[in-house]
């Protein structure tokens, strides 16, 4: 199975210097990315999910440093690359990123079409005419109606959802190997979000790139992720296949995240809520970072950092609850039989629910 690993991150830590103080943004994180999969990184703001993926493209802010660990992309070590020149050919070309706000990646004073064509000319060496027709094809692909006529329009003439489609088209223009989607739908309306997710899924099937999908909302990735990693306070605390994370979660934080999804709430009752707020990353965290908010915390959680316990070949969780010495704890009632509950609660049939 190691054959299809295209990106291997081993024990990476990232620190930021903020006015003389050290902020430990990423703390000993390891991860493997398999060719062709959609890998979701789920975490709250400040969990380090964005910072983590920025290490793959050399886009850490100036005050941030990789202080330990290795990042290997198809045999090439990325953690040693420092200068922008070293990143040429990787960033944007082999590993492309789509951000939450499409305007950060679009030039407001250039036409939509020319921005796509430019990338095609630069990365594929096509002529101007070829590039234009390829760009129009791409616009078609990402679902821009009447692409030919809209080629010469400017970004401000596009809606938020349409702009995000263009950013995806620009990213696709250089045939990336890995596409990092950093909360691409968070700023969009729900109906547009659903369409963009669908688009990413379709394009993935056609272009066979590998996707890292970053989001704070576990609900969003159920439809598209193959595997999910949950991040908390700069650590990956659980990783597994999509089904494992949703139907057999092991870490109390994952339980809490699932439990607090509003889709699971019943009217008249109260929503499950996680008490408190995440810890400050300026402090040295002793033990399990989630322990102070964890109803299932044990004394050991305040003493020692738990290792990654293996649940199955694909499923690992960083909690002392999996230690043989710990007493067995069931996941909370609310998220047991998740599938049955959601089926009963659902009117999703209206959304052309097709059984296969």
């Amino acid at each position, binding site marked *: 199975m190691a054959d299809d690993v295209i990106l291997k991150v081993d024990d990476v830590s990232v620190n930021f210097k903020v*006015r003389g103080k050290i902020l430990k943004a990423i703390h000993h994180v390891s991860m493997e990315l398999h060719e062709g999969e959609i890998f979701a990184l789920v975490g709250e703001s400040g969990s380090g999910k964005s910072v983590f993926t920025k290490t793959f493209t050399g886009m850490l802010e100036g005050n941030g440093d990789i202080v330990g660990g290795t990042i290997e992309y198809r045999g090439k070590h990325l953690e040693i690359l420092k200068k922008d020149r070293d990143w040429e050919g990787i960033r944007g070309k082999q590993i492309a990123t789509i951000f939450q706000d499409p305007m950060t990646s679009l030039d407001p004073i250039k036409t939509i079409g020319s921005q796509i064509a430019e990338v095609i000319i630069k990365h594929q060496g096509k002529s101007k005419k070829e590039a234009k027709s390829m760009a129009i094809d791409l616009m078609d692909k990402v679902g821009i109606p009447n692409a030919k006529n809209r080629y010469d329009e400017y970004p401000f003439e596009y809606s938020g959802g349409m702009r995000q489609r263009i950013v995806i088209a620009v990213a696709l223009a250089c045939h990336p190997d890995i596409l990092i989607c950093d909360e691409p739908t968070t700023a969009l309306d729900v109906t547009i979000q659903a369409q963009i997710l669908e688009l990413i899924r379709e394009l993935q099937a056609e272009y066979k790139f590998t996707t890292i999908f970053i989001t704070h909302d576990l609900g969003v990735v159920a439809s598209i992720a193959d595997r999910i990693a949950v991040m908390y306070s700069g650590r990956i605390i659980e990783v597994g296949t999509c089904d494992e994370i949703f139907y057999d979660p092991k870490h109390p934080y994952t339980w809490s995240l699932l439990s607090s999804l509003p889709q699971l709430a019943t009217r008249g009752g109260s929503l499950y809520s996680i*008490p*408190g*707020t995440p*810890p*400050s990353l*300026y*402090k040295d965290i002793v033990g399990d970072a989630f322990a*102070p*908010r*964890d*109803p*299932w*915390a*044990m*004394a*050991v*959680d*305040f*003493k*020692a*950092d738990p*290792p990654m316990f293996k649940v199955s070949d694909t499923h690992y969780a960083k909690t*002392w609850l999996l*230690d043989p*010495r*710990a*007493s067995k*704890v069931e996941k909370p009632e609310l998220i047991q039989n998740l599938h049955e509950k959601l089926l009963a609660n659902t009117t999703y049939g209206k959304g052309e629910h097709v059984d296969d």
Partner: protein
Amino acid sequence: MENPEIKDSDFKLVKLDEEASEKIDTPKYSYWRSVGRQFFSNKVTIIVLVVMVVVLLMSFIQPMFSGYSLTDVTGVNDLTRRFNWPSAQYWFGTDKDGKSLFDAIWAGARTSISIGVISTLITMVIGVLVGAVWGVSKRVDRIMLEVYNVISNVPSLLIIIVLSYTFGSGFWNLIFAMTVTSWIGVAYFIRVQVMIMRDREYNIASRTLGTPTVRMIFRNILPYLTSVVVTNASTQLPGFISYEVFLSFLGVGLSQNVPSLGRLISQYAPYITSYPYLFWLPVLVLALITISLYVVGQNLADASDPRTHR
């Protein structure tokens, strides 16, 4: 692993302290203390601040002992006291009347700084208050915009010169001439700032809580403007000092018996080639004063912006 020893007894559930994770670990925040910390964290600022304090002390204390008088000509016939180059006895040398330039400069600096500080204070207080009202009231806005358009289209130096001639020379006359229109620029600036702030969400929140407009100006809007007000003041202050120098150079402004840097510079300008120290030393002190006041003011402005804190 760096783990300490783990006993079986550690694997017992502990009760959740719900308050623990609500606690804020950082030390308590105080706005002015943070301004101070930020301000003094810059070494250049401290050096310039020391220069500024020395200059200020010299200007306000030294003249009390020197007994310098602009009209004193007792040394005019004593040739040994005339046109001495800077030396141990006369640090900055002497002029054609045998007066010590060292004494002259500090006495002049005192006047120039006083004019600058008083004019700036008047300008800022009137400017900020008028600007705040201007920014929130639509009725005031209509009238003030007309006034502003008229005044801002006349060069301010022209206004000052005309007023100086009309009212005659004198310390307070000069201040009046300089501040009578200067505040309107500040007021317009504050008006724009207030208009930007006015529709911010926290001000809408205050409106829904029934907060009266006056309190909104003082509690919600002006505190946010501390930094821009200080920036503005720190550019006004050297400006006023320069105006004084310029007007004294022209021979309007202060009355004949009041020493000031401007007067010294204009008086000694003819000696720029024969006795250059007479001209350059006052210019140097003038530069020291305006630059140090400006730098300290700008750094104070930066420090008073809470985005720089922590």
